[in-house]
């Protein structure tokens, strides 16, 4: 009997070119309104000319084993967010709205969830669950020009994501939060090694302009 399926994504920072194809493909696939994003490519820049470093850090829902958004749901609304058997964290639009949604959004230590500006419901990356259920890669993975995103079943030893994780050292964001993320990073340590932690989010022209957190691998 095969092991239970468990979806995960690996993002190899060494392959990310900061092109943002993932961001527009997500907008298109999921009809995400202006002003909010299900995924970001953060641009971190540090150093004094000419000793400059700039690095790209794509972020999206971590589909945690212990989802903090779910834990933050008010009593009686526990089923507004569900961790599926395959690991994908989904929400129920009919239930995860208003104050319930606000609590869940507040609960995410990664600030990866948001309110739909018109529908007033909870939103975040769902690994394109409708595509995955139809046998397709998530939109951001499908279009990733650098080949930085690898997605699949980590319990399947023949999958690319399994093999990638077996041959590369991976880290997660904010492990100290104890949420056990399923979005992994290769070369996340470059952000500390190249002294990019605490650096400015750039460029300021972008919608991705958010105060940068101290990412430590």
């Amino acid at each position, binding site marked *: 009997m095969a092991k239970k399926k468990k979806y995960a994504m690996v993002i190899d920072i060494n392959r990310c070119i900061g092109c943002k194809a993932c*961001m527009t493909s997500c907008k298109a696939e999921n009809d995400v309104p202006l002003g909010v994003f299900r995924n970001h490519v953060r641009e971190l820049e540090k150093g004094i*000319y000419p000793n400059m470093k700039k690095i790209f850090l794509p972020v999206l829902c971590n589909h945690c084993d212990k989802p903090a958004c779910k834990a933050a749901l008010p009593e009686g609304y526990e089923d507004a967010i569900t961790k599926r058997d395959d690991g994908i964290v989904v929400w129920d639009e009919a239930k995860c709205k208003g104050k319930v949604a606000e609590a869940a959004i507040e609960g995410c230590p990664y600030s990866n969830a948001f309110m739909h500006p018109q529908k007033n419901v909870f939103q975040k990356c769902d690994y394109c669950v409708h595509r995955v259920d139809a046998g397709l890669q998530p939109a951001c993975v499908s279009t990733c020009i650098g080949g930085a995103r690898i997605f699949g*079943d980590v319990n399947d030893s023949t999958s690319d994501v399994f093999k990638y994780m077996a041959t590369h050292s991976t880290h997660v964001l904010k492990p100290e939060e104890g949420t056990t993320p399923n979005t992994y990073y290769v070369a996340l340590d470059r952000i500390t090694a190249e002294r990019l932690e605490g650096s400015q989010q750039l460029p300021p022209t972008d919608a991705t302009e958010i105060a940068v957190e101290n990412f430590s691998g």
Partner: protein
Amino acid sequence: MQLKRRKFIQLGSAAGAALTVGSQFGMKAKAAALMELKQTGSASPTGKKNQEIPYTCLTCNIEDGGIAYVEDGRIRRLEGNPNHPGNRGKLCAKGNAGHLHVYDPTRILNPLKRIGPRGSGKWKRISWDEALSEVAGKIQGAMDIDPMSIMFQYGRNRTHGLVYRFMNALGSGTVNNHTSICECNKKVAMEHAWGPDIETPDFAHTKYILNFGSNLAEAAYFHNPYIQRLIDGKVENKAKLVTFDPRMTNTGAISDEWVPLKPATDGIVALAMCNVILQEGLADTEFIRKYTNVTAHQLAEHLKQFSPEFAEKESGVSADTIRRIAIEFATAGPATTYTYRGSSMHQNGVYTEKATMMLNVVTGNIEKRGGFNLPRGLGFGGGPGPHPPKPPHSILKYPPEYPLASHHVSHHVSHSILEGRQKINVFMLYCHNPLYTQPDGDTWKELLSSEKHIPYSVSFSINMDSSTEYADIILPDTTFLERWDPESMPSSALGWVGLRQPVIKPLGNAKAFRDTIYELAQKIDPDGKRGVKKYFSYGSAESYVKNQLEATPGLKAAGGFKLLKKYGVWPFYDKKKEDNFKFGAHEEALSESDLAGTTLEGRTLMKGGKSVGLMVDGKAVRGFGTPSRTFQVNVPEWEHYGFEPMPHYEPIEDHKRMKSDELLLSTYKPNVHTQSRTPNLKWLQELHHRNPAWINSETAKARGIGDDELIRITSPIGYMVTKARVTEAIHPQVVAIATSSGMTNKATVGNYGGTKDPDIVQNTWWDDTGVHPNQIIPVSTDPIGGGMGWFDTVITVTKAKAGDKYGDTHSDRGAARKAFEKALSKATKVRDSGDAHNTTAKTNVRDERHTEVGGVFGTTAKLRDFEDPHNTTA
């Protein structure tokens, strides 16, 4: 027909459901129980089955392959075509937003006729019949006076011959492209050096990449296909990437080393490196001996003048760094350079391009695995006969003072018409927005506003861009998702042809340009007496494009046009084939039939007056696509016109005279936009909508400028008021401003609120759409290539003055004129009599030569000599 690149295997019962959305483009399940997660396919939220129609993208000009998912007649989504040898199933940020062009709420969907003064924005809707009758009448009138007075100005024209068919049929050679503001200096240098106008480096298998000023991670040819391979090379093959660029681009960011340098000095850095490589005994002297027209000794002696110390003085890059990188490049294993517009669109751009090419020559990295290689493309035909004869060239197209500028000198055209160099009666504008994209945009505004110089103006456009605002009549064009075109680009070592086909019917009363021209030809010549109609008797646009594509060798046998309609591209991507591609086209032996009837001139084999091969150590080989069949380190034609035939560095005069407080202005394309055609796409505009000027922190400090503060930038022809982005990511002597911002038209998302898209109405969170610098960038020109010196403008930057408002721009007409005259003063000293028909014999000789050299190695140019023969990419 199966995609084998990704092998995502999953187990699961959900796999069964996937079969219902199975796509002809995706992979087939290997077994019933095993299902791979496919890269592409449709999963509509409505659960409806979508039509899957392949197309060729045209948000920019890389020509990537895509698949449109159409639901109830509406495009729901675009994805990459996994069968495409160039983009391998991936689309960039722009491509993913391409269908927003179709549903742009400001799109023009009916012919419009001007009813107020030019530029007043007052229009009335008219019928197509009325519109075409009016335009046909104006063209007939102009034909009766002088057909050459009918001018066609195009930009992103991908009709592959239709514009020329139309204009040739009318008898006018007054056709102008936009290549001189793109990358023509690079093209001219490469054509004279080795034949084709672009390279296809083998990034995936290289060990070292020296990038001079290109930004492949964000733009450039061929952004998506090339960066995929470059990342493969970097990550899997451990290639080192070094980027010379005054600005830290995203390509700089992913580089192992970013080496900022003073603009327009890439050439001296490259030549100093070549010098080091020869002096250190690291050169491939055998390649130089066999395949160039100089000896290694001659070259070494010539290069001695370009010392690393001299290069340091000019560029600011230390002599030690130059020496180290030169040695690394020469000893890394297979290595390649890459350039696009950054290093070549200076007044010394042709010399610079040749200098950077020389690094590949001296290391013998030409035409080999992991090296700097000739472009491979498949061609297609010139469309159904008969073909109209070619009229004489206009002096606007080929000004005699630029005898080597084989890609037109488009940025001189506004001044030239205003000075009366050629009389224009009818002006047609297609896929070009000169007011915005050309330098000295206010001169274009002056021209397009002038009913004296442009008595009648037609724009074929999808929306109200800044130049279309000055038209007399607008014929609404369709987007790239509603039209037919053949395509081919050398974006992979594996050549391909692709099809652009309508994935939906045109919206409203928009009409595809191909159809508009066809119908216009019938209106101009209803009874055939004008000799125009016979060239427009092929029926539909589809039949025209089918005819072109079915001329591609091998396609018919593989399934022909039908195959392209179903799969979008041919042949399909084949990783194994690409990984094992055999280079060395220049070493290919000539066959017996090739050799029959040849004569030898020096080492060059001649046949019928044309060079066909090269003798190398007693063997007859193909060589390169130049008159001598060698890689021409020495270009005799340049010497003929008073230019330096050998590798050369020419400092920019204005830069030598710069005062200590003066800076240089640079512009760039950000990753989510094209030059001018995307600010109407909300998802892109959201990611990048304003363009503060990048200024180094020290430079800003010296001027008392803080981040995001108002600054005034003054150039020789005017000033602009914008905001500063104080950063460490730029050379202290350079200020850089992004293009694609600063549009004042209503199509730009952020400029208006009157659209019907509720998302834009309710959720647009920005109203700053930037300030455009082109109005203050004067015309300047490379005297060899005829290309615009985009990154050469000397400026001063101060805090804004009292009363300055964000967005203020001003240009001085007299100063703009003076700058144009200054550019002309550096041109070859041949001026014409002012007669449009008086084109010199040289021009025609040049055209033929380029047709010939373009045909070598089966580049895309081979079957396209009916048009601008070398315009593979512009």
